[in-house]
């Protein structure tokens, strides 16, 4: 499972870099700005929806962002799979531990950014 996650991430990142140089821009931002070390691109402006929207246009930057999002999602999926595994094994202690972890992850990803 992890293996496919890594492969998907790598494919998106590498093709994203190529597309970026091919088009000379990504998501309406010029290449010189994207490769600029000091300024960078403000990731907080991109929602998942807008990234997927640009993916359909074979946009380099959105491909890179998709790869990064896929990477972040892998460990979360891994905990979820473990939850399912221990539910099948009916091991209550580990069901509880996995559930606590998933709940914490959801709090961190969905709630904290809104509060802070």
């Amino acid at each position: 499972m992890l293996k496919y996650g890594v492969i998907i991430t790598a494919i998106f990142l590498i093709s994203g870099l190529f597309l970026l140089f091919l088009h000379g821009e990504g998501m309406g931002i010029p290449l010189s700005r994207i490769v600029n070390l000091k300024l960078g691109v403000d990731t907080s402006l991109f929602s998942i929806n807008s990234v997927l929207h640009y993916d359909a246009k074979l946009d380099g930057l959105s491909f890179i962002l998709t790869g990064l999002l896929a990477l972040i999602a892998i460990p979360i999926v891994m905990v979820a799979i473990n939850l399912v595994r221990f539910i099948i094994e009916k091991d209550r202690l580990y069901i509880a531990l996995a559930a606590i972890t998933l709940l914490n992850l959801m709090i961190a990803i969905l709630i904290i950014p809104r509060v802070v």
Partner: protein
Amino acid sequence: MMIGILFQIFIVLVCAYVAGLLGGLLGLGGAVVLTPLLTIFIDLPIQYAAGISLLSAVGTSVTSGYRYLKLKIPDLRIFLFMVSAGTTGAIIGSFLLYELMKTEYTWILYIVFSIVMYIAAFFTVKQAPKREMEPLSDRLNKSKGFSIQGKYFDPALHLYVDYYVGKKRIFESWGVMLFGGLMSGLLGIGGGPINMFALYGIQSLPIKVASATSNLIVGVTASTSGSIYWQFGYIHPFLSAVSIIGIIAGALHASYLLPKTKGSTIKIVLLSVFCI
């Protein structure tokens, strides 16, 4: 300009490869190695370097993770114990950070953290000898009551290595991980050295099991902080992409090396990283 960019890509790739290799071998996630390399060699602003390091930590974790899982080296029960503590601590930590940022005592955090690192290093050194082998009968006698037991095949020793962790040790390390998560939430790091302290220093797991399990834990904590950094706008997409490609290559290499490396070699490298 083009040549400048290509040169940058090359440097970042090399740094990331080295970080992936070390991170994968030591279960540190690579963030500890990559942040200083990037700030020194390409003069990258610290928040971008930290963002890249977090994502790279996820990269190292999942890349070496899948090889280790296939070889059944990480212990998933211990993993769940530790991540449940680590993530709980991380959430408390981020709220504490939020409150602390309003005051002027932020410098306290950095001092506390340095002290924790030195204590972790000290205990790892103290515990270092007397392992690799121990008669099975001794372990079976000790394992009454609740405990986690496991074994893995070590190609370097050509043996199955058994281990067990008693109840007391599990709860002690759960406490350490709660504290480690707290620190990680406060400082925005993956917390690899603290994992290693909990797994190797306290639980006395064989170093390979400790480092492979720590690897998975780092992935979970770093992806949590990574998504928060994303919301803060601290992720540099272009450099992250280049770094992660390098990291994946390095971590892949590490995961082929780890089963063949002797435990003692890993310990020496681990200690030298602690010293830096």
